[in-house]
C-alpha cells in the first residue's frame, strides 16, 4: 500500500493560505508530521461505507431552542472589546493597509 504524500509545493501553498510563515526547522518537522498524519487518515479510504450512510455533523444531533426572538439587547461594554485591540484610534481598530487590494 502506498500512501498519498503532500508535495512540498502544496505544503508551501497551504502555509500561505493559513496565513503562516515557518522557519526551515518548523517547515521540516510540520511537513513530515503532516504526511505521517495523512498515512493515518488514509485508513478512511479503506473503509467500506454502505451506500446510504449520511454524513453526520454532530454525532448526536443537537435539539436546541428554536431561533431566538428578534429583540434588541445591547452589550453593556462595547468599548471593552475595542480596548483589547493592540492599536486603536478614535474608537476604531488600526491595522496596516492591504497591498494590492481594494
Amino acid at each position, binding site marked *: 500500500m502506498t500512501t498519498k504524500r503532500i508535495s512540498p509545493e502544496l505544503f508551501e501553498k497551504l502555509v500561505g493560505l493559513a496565513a503562516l510563515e515557518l522557519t526551515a526547522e518548523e517547515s521540516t518537522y510540520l511537513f513530515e508530521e503532516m504526511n505521517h*498524519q495523512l498515512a*493515518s*487518515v488514509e485508513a478512511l479510504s479503506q473503509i467500506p461505507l454502505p451506500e446510504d450512510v449520511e*454524513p453526520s455533523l454532530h454525532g448526536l444531533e443537537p435539539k436546541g431552542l428554536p431561533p431566538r426572538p428578534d429583540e434588541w439587547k445591547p452589550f453593556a461594554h462595547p468599548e471593552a472589546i475595542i480596548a483589547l485591540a493592540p492599536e486603536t484610534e478614535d474608537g476604531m481598530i488600526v491595522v*496596516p493597509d492591504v*497591498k494590492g487590494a481594494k
Partner: protein
Amino acid sequence: MSLTQLSAFEVAHKVRTGEVKAAEFAQAALEQIRAVDGVSGSLNPGELDPIEESKVHAFIQVTQDKAIEQAEKVDQKIANGDEPGLLAGVPLSVKDIFCVEGTRTTAASKIIANFVPPYTATAVQRLVDAGAIVLGKVNLDEFTFGSSNESSAFQPSTSNPWNTEYVPGGSSGGSAASVAAQEVALSLGTDTGGSIRQPAAFCGVVGLKPSYGRVSRLGLIAFASSLDCPGPLSRNVRDSALMLQVMAGNDPKDSTSSTLPVDDYLGALEQDVKGLRIGLSPDYEAVYYPDLESGELHSEPIQKGVREAVLRAAETLAKAGAEIVENVPMPNTRYGIPAYFVISRVEAASNLHRFDGVKYGYRTPEAVEDLNELYRRSRAEGFGLEPKLRILMGMYVSAAEHASSYYQKALKVRSMIRSDFEHAFDPQGAYRLDALLTSTTATTAFKRKAVYGNSVLMQYSDQMTVASNHAGVPALTMPGGLDENGLPIGIQLIGNDFREEMILRIGNAYEQLTADDAWRKVRPQVLQGEVRA
C-alpha cells in the same frame, strides 16, 4: 483529615452547616497550591530550580484575591441565611480555555497570552453562582491540542502528581493534576477527543465527558465545535455528579445546547446496579495504529494491567448483580482517530482564523509591509507548533478538491461510529446495554518527552475515548487500580445519549464496592510528603 482531602460534597455540607467557613477552605486550597504546585506556567520560565521537578505546576494563574472574595461572599450569604448554592465553598480550578470576565484567559498560547475577556463562560458562571470558589486557571495543551500537556506555551507544563517524571495527560492535564494533588476538589475541563478522560485516568481521578449539548459551550474557546464538551473532574463519582448537576441545562446562548430536562444525578446514585446490562467489547481491547510510512494498520493489545482492571471491574459489578454482556461489536472504533484527524482539524483551522493579531492578543512587534504580513507574522510568532500543524492539516483536508475524499468521508465514518453505539444501546436490539465498560486509555501515563513530537502517536492515545466524542454520547472515567509502576489505571463507562445518570450510578456503585481495595489507599507521590531525590 485535612480540609483539602475532603470531597466537594463534604465541603459544601460543612460550609452550609457553618461547621467550616468557605474562607477557610479557600485558604487551605491556597496553602496546598503553595506547597505542591511550584512556579506557575509562564511564557518565559527561565532557569528552573531543580526542586521544581517534583512540583505539579497545574496552575497558569492562581487568582488568590478573587478566590478569597468569592469565599467571603459565600460566608456572607450563610451569615445572612441566604441559599449559598450546591457548591458552597468548594475549591475549583478552571481549565484556561474558559473565558472568565476580568481574568486573563490564555488557552496556553502566546497568541492570546494577554487576553482578558469581557464576559464569562456559562459553565463557570453557573459554578460560581452555586458557590464554588475559583482558585485559578490551570494549564493545558496549547488550545487543548494534545494529550500530554507538554505543548503548552506556558512552561513548566503540568506533571503527573503520581510521579512527576510522567505526564498528567491532556489536554486537561492541569485540571486532572490539580484535583489529584488536592489543590482543589473540582476542576472544569473540556473533552474533544478524550481531553477530560485521558488525563483523569493518568492522574487517578474521576472525569466525565457529558453528552454533546448537555453543558453549554459558551465561553469555551473552541477547538472542534462539533466535538467539544465541557465537563467535571473530581476525586469521586459523587462530586462529578454534583458538579454536572450545577452546570447542565440549556443555555440560550449556545444553539447546540440541549433543551432536555436535566436528570437528578445525585438521586440516581442511590440506586444499585442489579439487573443493569453492562457490555464489554473486543474492539476496545486492542489499539490500531498506522505505519507512518505505509499507512498500514497494525494492532496491539492494550496494556495487560489495564485490561485486567477492566475485567476486574466487570467481575465486581457482576457480583453486585449487573449482567455482563460480552463480545459487543463496536467495529468502527478503530476508525475514530483517522476520522478525528480530519473532522477536528477542519474545525480547528477555522476556529483559529480569528487569532490574527488584529483585534486582541498577540500582534507582531516587528514593522510589517502590509496587513497580510501582519497576519503571517503574528500567527507565526503567536502559535506553537501543534496549532500550526492542526491548521495546516485542516486546510488540506477541507480544500475544495479534497473535501469529498477526506472531510465528507470522515463525517460518514462518524455516522458509522455512531451506529455502533445505537446498536449497542438499542432497547429492542441484541445487546440492550445500559453502559459499555472499557479502559479509558490503552496504557497508563507515559514519561515526559516519550511521545511528544510524534503527533500521530500522541493522537492515538485518545483511541479509547474519541469514539464517544464522535457519537456525542456521555462517558465517565474513574480509577480502576494501579499498574506495576504504581501509576493509575482508568476505566471507562460509556452511556447512551443523555444517560449521564446511568453511568454515574454504575460508577458510584463500583466506587462503593471497591472502597476497601488496597490500591485505593495509595496516595500520589506529591501527597506523600517526600521530595524525589
